[in-house]
């Protein structure tokens, strides 16, 4: 099957000499379209760095990241930013909502940045699915953590990116909310045919994925 996301001999080291940290150590990965992949590893195993590389947020020392067969690090910074905005939705542990914008504005922000028209019907569909239709005008600081993360998920989905990258999306949530957020994320992604790559240290969450990749010291030990 044609990979949607692929890394080839990816390397990223931090520090020098005794302090050398091999965050990513010659990693090859292939992620297929429509797949829900969980990347599991202890903290410090290099999984976040890997996700940042996959999303083009950081450049590797060597190696390639191919999105739909295109080497993203061959693009200039500016083009890469546009490419990223169109192809990838990010979800972070800390939600990263803009505090001065309300729920609706936060969700459609990336679409606006891209100078595109908002597909209101589609976005409302997502908002209903995440159960926030009566909170459109609320500001992020009036929402609970779970609600904020649901908004962040809607924001990531709203511009219909092919790939969703989630970095410990439930790290700050209690176990019930965690389960809820993951099941919602999973059903949305499968509904809209997107590819989800999620980082987690929680193997329970990883059970729900189609595939689990275990990372240790920057290397894939089990895929």
């Amino acid at each position, binding site marked *: 099957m044609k990979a949607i996301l692929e890394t080839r001999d990816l390397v990223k080291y931090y520090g020098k000499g005794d302090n050398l940290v091999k965050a990513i150590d010659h990693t090859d990965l292939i992620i297929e*379209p*429509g797949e829900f992949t969980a990347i599991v590893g202890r903290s410090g195993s290099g999984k976040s760095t890997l996700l940042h590389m996959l999303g083009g947020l950081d450049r590797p020392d060597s190696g390639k990241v191919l999105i739909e067969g295109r080497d993203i690090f061959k693009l200039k910074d500016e083009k890469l930013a546009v490419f990223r905005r169109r192809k990838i939705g990010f979800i972070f542990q800390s939600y990263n909502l803009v505090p001065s914008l309300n729920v609706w504005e936060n969700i459609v922000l990336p679409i606006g940045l891209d100078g595109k028209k908002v597909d209101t019907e589609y976005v409302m569909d997502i908002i209903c699915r995440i*159960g926030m239709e009566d909170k459109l005008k609320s500001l992020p600081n009036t929402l609970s953590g779970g609600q904020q993360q649901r908004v962040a998920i809607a924001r990531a989905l709203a511009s219909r990116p*092919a790939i969703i990258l989630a970095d410990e999306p439930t790290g700050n949530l209690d176990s*019930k909310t965690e*389960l809820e957020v993951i099941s919602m994320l999973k059903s949305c992604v499968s509904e809209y045919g997107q590819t989800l790559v999620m980082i987690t240290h929680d193997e*329970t969450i990883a059970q*729900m994925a189609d595939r689990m990749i275990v990372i240790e010291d920057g290397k894939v030990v089990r895929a």
Partner: protein
Amino acid sequence: MDRRKRTGVALAAGLLFLFVTEILLLFLAGNSLYKEEQGKLGALVLSHPEQETEYIELFDRGKQRNRQEEEAGKELEERYGYTPFDGRSVKTFAAYGIGMAMVFVAGLGVSWVLFLRNKRDRQQDENNQEELREKYIELQNHFEKVREKLSREENNIKSLITDISHQLKTPIASLKMSCELAGSADLTWEEREEFYKKEWDEIQRLENLLDSLIHVSRLESGMIQIQPEMGSLKNTLVQAVNSVYMKAYEKSIDISLDEFQDVQIVHDSKWTGEVFVNILDNAVKYSPEHTEIRIRVTELATCMMLEFIDQGTGIPAEEAHRVFQRFYRGNQEYVKKQEGSGVGLYLARKILEEQKGTICVKVAPEGGNNFVVTLPKK
């Protein structure tokens, strides 16, 4: 004519116009300079008609003025406080010069504006093109996905057939052996009875296995249509509990359902009930006697969460994500002792995913399993 050609033509026309205007202005300037010279000559001749020939010669001379003449002119200018800019010819020339410059600047300005507009249009074109290209890629990906889905389904069915044949092999082999032995001579009545009983057991097992296999193959080949309808979650759950109640009673296992506010959710009650039965059936099968199975239902913002907590040994963490795989069975002795096809939880996950629900297993506080099911509220 496309836009690029049109702008090209417009640009050429503009340039030609600019060129012609400038030439015209230059010609007019030259003409008026020429008239000025003529006037000057006329004035000189009129004031001193006697020197007419000399003046003509001076004006007519094609060669350059020599230094001496220039110096003399300069001296005269200085003496009378006269600057070259007071002269009519310079003024005319300056006026025409300014005119030409203005025309030129205006032309430049217009072409700059045109250039900017053109650039903007081109950028828009490029953006549109990019968008089209992306749409094309999206479509291509969609087709690719559909094609791959088809081939995956085909592979899936192939591997399902392989798996099923494999599953059927063992019980049939043992049935065959049993039959062969029973058919051979020299058996006492009791021995024969025993073989019959074994065969019967084996057939029973086969029947159970086939039942689950039929479920799986129907689900995989899309013959089971999950038909979600609005209905009471409590009803579905209670029916499931009832159907395993006797089995639990035989092992003195108590099934308790925590009180909860019933909700109407969209779900396929038959198949969702099957999921609950599978989970409870496992819990009863693998829990020791005199234990309790607790069911807890919690309403969350977007979904209902159901927990099935038993007091058994629990699934080891490293196996947890594999129990939902088709035909996977644990390696522990107590698992192998029990009958099972490795289909129940796989089926459960499939059925739930069809309804946008999820299932996972956690370690319960007392060490048993906690199967957590979520079903969306809408």
